[in-house]
């Protein structure tokens, strides 16, 4: 089976400082990979390098494209990369304001990707927007409201709908539940887990919340100071941490 994403020796430096260094992993179709670590450990840098938002300094990221098979993203032209990020990829930001157009109605937000890939039938676009609002549990009568009128949890769900409407195969998520209260988090995680199963999505989820990876991720990478210190099956890493930092991380989770 061809991995959907093959990462080899990925390195990003900010001058003399290390963003992330020598990261290797394979992501297979339908697999969810979690990346945990403290603030400043290079999780978001790694994610942004994968998604093409940042230019990596060394290494390769090979994505299994629909049309031409495995291609190195760093060797791809910008139009191709942007096309990928509109169709086959999705990026869910921590703050929905970064991922949504706040001045455009919910329907327009969901429809933007469809229109970007050439949908030109208003009724069709609207029907698909309604379908997706329903799937992320937003009432149909809110379709013409702007995201500014939505609660934080609704905004995050709208962002997910907007990203998944073109049927991507790979989703990047940067702290998807950060800044939401616990009950809303639980609902969002339920929703995400359902969508990932149903659509057979692969995902890379960056978070510092171990409960999130326990629930969503099949495999886990633990990062510290730009390096991957431990990787393995999620339950294995969390139940039997080997590296000192992982042990610290697991033991510092608050118990209720």
């Amino acid at each position, binding site marked *: 089976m061809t991995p959907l994403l093959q990462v080899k020796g990925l390195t990003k430096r900010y001058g003399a400082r290390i963003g992330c260094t020598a990261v290797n992993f394979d992501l297979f179709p339908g697999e969810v990979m979690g990346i945990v670590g403290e603030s400043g450990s290079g999780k978001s840098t790694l994610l942004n390098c994968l998604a093409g938002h940042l230019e990596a300094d060394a290494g390769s990221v090979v994505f299994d494209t629909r049309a031409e098979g495995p291609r190195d993203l760093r060797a791809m032209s910008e139009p191709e990369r942007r096309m990928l990020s509109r169709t086959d990829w999705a990026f869910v930001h921590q703050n929905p304001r970064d991922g949504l157009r706040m001045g455009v109605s919910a329907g327009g937000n969901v429809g933007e990707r469809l*229109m970007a890939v050439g949908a030109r039938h208003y009724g069709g676009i609207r029907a698909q927007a309604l379908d997706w609002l329903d799937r992320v549990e937003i009432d149909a009568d809110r379709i013409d409201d702007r995201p500014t009128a939505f609660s934080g949890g609704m905004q995050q769900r709208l962002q997910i709908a907007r990203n998944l409407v073109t049927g991507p195969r790979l989703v990047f998520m940067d702290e998807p539940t950060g800044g939401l209260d616990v009950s809303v988090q639980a609902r969002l995680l339920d929703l995400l887990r359902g969508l990932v199963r149903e659509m057979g999505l692969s995902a890379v989820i960056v978070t510092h919340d171990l409960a999130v990876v326990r629930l969503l991720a099949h495999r886990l990478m633990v990062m510290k100071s730009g390096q991957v210190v431990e990787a393995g099956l999620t339950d294995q890493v969390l139940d039997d941490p080997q590296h000192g930092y992982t042990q610290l991380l697991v033991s510092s989770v608050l118990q209720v």
Partner: protein
Amino acid sequence: MSDYNFAYLDEQTKRMIRRAILKALAVPGYQVPFASREMPMPYGWGTGGVQVSAACLVPEDRLKVIDQGADDTTNAVSIRRFFEKTAGVATTTKTTEATLIQTRHRIPEEPLTRDQILVYQVPIPEPLRFLEPRETETRKMHSLEEYGLVHVKLYEDIARHGQIATSYAYPVKVEGRYVMDPSPIPKFDNPKLESEAIQLFGAGREQRIYALPPYCHVVSLDFEDHPFVASKADHACDLCGSNSTYLDEVIVDDAGGRMFVCSDTDYCEGRRAAGHLGRLAAPLGQENAA
């Protein structure tokens, strides 16, 4: 004549503008940057159009200037006088007699011919400006042909108003490539963008020139189930009776009285001179009889 160089601008500046115009004609719809000069009029009064006109004028030209369809409003009168003074060219108000027409917000009703040039005054040349404020990003969107956002704007119109409510500066796609802002002409005029004449667009403050060569293919963007409509007020002209022209609504008293008149004054006068009469018109020459 006068102490000015012909048509006010110095020859080097005209040369620079002509190069920009040639490039704009070679890449229809692409916004060519140019080093816009200070003109003796405020921004927003047609500094871009005036510079393009100045670069195109030759002494044999006959100039017509339109402001919102009319020849006798402030902007039109002052620009016409400007070129009478600095270039000494002949001027006219007749569309058919003019060789170079500078316009603001309208395309003449009379179809243009192959030996005419139409110069538009453009306030904001970037069709994506109100959707994406970053210039770096809009340039990238143009170069990568990422125009989904224009349709988001039209989608919002339909969602909010039940139809495409954008009525002027209606975005068009030129030769299947660049999305272009046709300057704030009413969308009624959009079909006339496909013309025999050369059409040049000058934006002075924004320092951009773009162009439509003759017979250029121009498509107004729309949805399959909400097609583009070149709309106008549903009336006939009260002066000349024409059913097919773009109309201005004029309030005539404070009791709700109103009349609709052609916005293109030259076309309207031509029809009245030919004997067409609208609902409220007296025959030409007898306006003050009563």
